């Protein structure tokens, strides 16, 4: 009898650290990356690592947590959404982030995109115009990262004090590519931005700065989800 009780106690003691160590959402993330990201052609190793590491469910409102790893955008309040995982991966890969990069993000929203970037680059500066969203995202990001700075401000003017940036990620739709952002982009830097009327389907656009020359490349239409061809 004592032998059995001892065995039971031992097994419970062994199970506790195992239980604490394993993250039940890790499997969801792995599946998300395999089925939604890699299968759709994202191959940037750092981006894939970051998507596997960042707990997306921490960045969505409690009532949406059960859908956190689903292949779709989710409402986060204030008429805003957390982008579909593929869009986040696509926007991250397209700026080709390197460990030494300083990246500016316009439109913090949930904070998820900033967290993905923070996993890869040296420093992330992120600006949110809606105070409630910015404060909420700032709290979550503070918990996990010390290389992210959040500011509540109008993203049109960028973050002049921290410029120049190696890359800029704009997540809010705009009818204009703000001149201050182009100015704050380092020579050779890349900016990804959804453009078009803020009240319509937008186009995801890559802006590249080469000296005085600025080039744009139209990538894909988006409205919560990308309209990529199969």
């Amino acid at each position: 009898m004592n032998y059995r009780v001892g065995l039971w106690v031992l097994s419970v003691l062994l199970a506790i650290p195992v239980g604490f160590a394993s993250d039940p959402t890790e499997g969801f993330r792995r599946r998300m990356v395999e089925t939604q990201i890699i299968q759709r052609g994202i191959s940037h190793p750092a981006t894939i690592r970051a998507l596997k590491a960042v707990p997306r469910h921490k960045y969505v409102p409690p009532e949406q947590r059960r859908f956190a790893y689903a292949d779709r955008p989710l409402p986060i309040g204030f008429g805003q959404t957390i982008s579909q995982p593929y869009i986040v991966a696509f926007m991250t890969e397209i700026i080709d982030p390197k460990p030494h990069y300083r990246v500016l993000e316009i439109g913090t929203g949930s904070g998820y995109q900033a967290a993905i970037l923070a996993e890869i680059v040296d420093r992330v500066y992120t600006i949110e115009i809606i105070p409630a969203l910015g404060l909420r995202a700032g709290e979550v990001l503070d918990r996990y990262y010390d290389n992210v700075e959040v500011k509540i401000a109008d993203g049109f003017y960028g973050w002049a004090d921290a410029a120049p940036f190696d890359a800029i990620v704009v997540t809010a739709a705009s009818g204009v590519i703000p001149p201050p952002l182009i100015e704050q982009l380092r020579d050779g830097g890349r900016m990804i931005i959804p453009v078009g009327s803020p009240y319509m389907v937008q186009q995801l656009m890559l802006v590249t700065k080469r000296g005085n020359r600025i080039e744009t490349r139209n990538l894909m239409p988006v409205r919560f989800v990308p309209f990529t061809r199969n």
Partner: protein
Amino acid sequence: MRVSNFRQFFALGLHSAAIIAFQISLMQLVSNVQWHHFAYMIISVAMLGFGAAGTALAICREKLLIAANWLIPLLMILSGALMAVVFPITNTELLQFDVFALFTGGWGFTTLVINYLIFFLPLFFGALAIGIIFLIHSNNIGAYYFANLTGSGLGGVLALFFMSWALPLQVSALVGTFSVLSGVMLSDTKTLKQNLVAALLCLMVIGWVAANPGVLRPSSYKDIALTRQIPGTELRIQKPSIYGFVEVLYAPKQRFAPALSLTYQGEAPGGYIIFVNGNYYSHVLNQYPQDNAHILDYTTMKLPFVLGNPQRVLCVNAGSGIGVSHALHHGAAHVDAIIENRKIVSLLKNELSVASGGVLLHPKVEVHPLQTRNFLARTDSNYYDLVILPLLSEFGGGAGLHSLREDYDLTIEAFVQMIRTLRPQGMVSVSTWVDHPPRYSLKLLATLVQAAKKSGFEHPAKHIVALRSWGTITFLLQKTPFADYQLENLRNFSQELLFDPFLMPELLPFERDAFNALSDATLFQKADSIIISSASAINEYSFDISPATDNQPFFSNFVNLGKIPRLLHQFDLGKLPFLELGFFLLLATLAKSIILAVLLIIIPLFVLKKSQANKRRTLLYFSALGLGYMFVEIILIQKFVLYLGQPMYAVVAVVGTMMLSSGFGSLFSQKLLPNWETMGKIGAIILGLLIIKLLILTPLLQHTLAANFATKVVLSLIAIGVPAFVMGMMFPLGIRYLHKHHPAQIPWAWGINACMSVVSTSAATLVSVEAGFQTVILIAILIYLIAAMAFYSPFSKKSTNP
């Protein structure tokens, strides 16, 4: 004491007016918080309240007839009270539905169903009262149907009257009082006291709602809600109007910047923004006359002023006058500005005159609150140097949710009219956002090419140039071929502002994407094929980019049933609705209506299984009437929107005239014998009138488009009123026929008619999108042929004549 006949007619008319006015006010409310397609969707289901009332009558006929004396007034009073409260109930945080929630998970579907049920209630109770009255007086149905139709016709006018001065949330409450009053009027001495108490309680509720209308809670994805989220935004003006609820926000951080050149170094202007029914209408900019450079000079929209020096300019759908100020900035001597919405004209001339730089009050500017086509029909040939259309998607002509709105300003016929008004060097300028997959730009080009050919230009490619920035494309169509110096100017302007020439003679491939690359070459390849009039380039494309015509003026719809398999092959099913939501909502509405209509018709069939034969004929006859009448009504609305020039007036004129004329037809039918011969003859007359309509209506309206208003009113009354008068006889004749032969089928027949009316609304829209308005008339002819023959006795085993 029995209630007098006059009081019954009057109360029935008043109650019918309230029901129609409630539906119109509900549509406006739902359009404000959601989008207008969803408003149609929810109304179509709510309208099935009529069908459900028919079902209830068929099942509980005897019990309801016994209780009629006290039940009818009570149902009317209840219906009136519910009209006032249903929307405020759904306008709460708990029950608010959001159409995009259907695609993003959560409680979207559940709240949708709850909303349906809530909106269904006032119409169900209201319709049940009407149904019981019809059932009691089925032998004298012509007179009662007259009261019902006349009231319904006037209900539209009543709704517009309220909408012109009351807040949207007050309108539905105010119309509810009419149903409450009708209930009191129908109370006899036995029930008067209790009904008065009930009515007083209901009127107190209605009064409270009208006095405390609260605030509309639009979807968080609606344009106005998105703008409100931006700090510093303030609501400055709210104006009820028959054109929609107009709101003006001051939003300094929501900037007007239609794809500004990357060379632009200034601050993009923000400020006042006008919204109509919660949808973005236009920014209001103070741009003229003090500015050195106009904001549009940094966009592709400057192109006509680079290639020419226009003196007489026409701004079509001038919005808040930004295009007008642009033309003045470039030295135009006279600008005609077409702005249909009179409320917005008034705002820009008064409350917003400073914010808009007083542009509409400028001595060189003349504002025309008309529909474009009407204005063009009255304009001399060889008059303008430049006709400017707004950036597509602005001023309510946009994509997705706006896709099934007809747009007569962007059809081949419209461009031919514009070209006619141009002087020899004159140009038409039209711009669109760059879209991907390309649809707007290609459909616009296809329409321009066909318009050029119809205007006698042998080589459209020599008359059309286009310039592309990172965000917009501007097309110019010139009456004479473009000269070499103009093409040189275009190239220089492109270089200067980092734009790319998109279409022009002798364009070199590398010039096309020197600054702004595209993800694939589809846009270039298709445009090159379309400009040489290649039909296969249009037919083989995944989206419908065929030129828009007056027969199919749905410029912003790029999907049709035939294209769906190909689209599904290219895109996931889940993504398509985001791209072309309007068309898929229409399909969903039609599917829902059919399913519910079948349920509402089949249930009573089981109840009626013991009754006599001819159920199939009853089903056929009343289904055909429900479908046919609405098909004709919808086609007339579409035709007369263009003809009368004011969409809201056109709807009221068509619906009102049809209802009133049909009401008189119904009254007249009381003199006719209700047998299959009469019904056959009346059906044949309707067929004849519809065939005449098919043959001559379009040319008649086209030839008299420029006629004076009085002539147009007389022609409209004849074109709408005469067929409607005859069509109005069919339903009461059918009911009286059933009264004699199969009285148990009357409520069922009434329900069938109502259900099919709902189905036909979305079915007619689908047919017009797919095959054009002429096909809708053809189908209406076939439907009335079925109605005319439904009770034809040689098809019956036993004589159906009395």
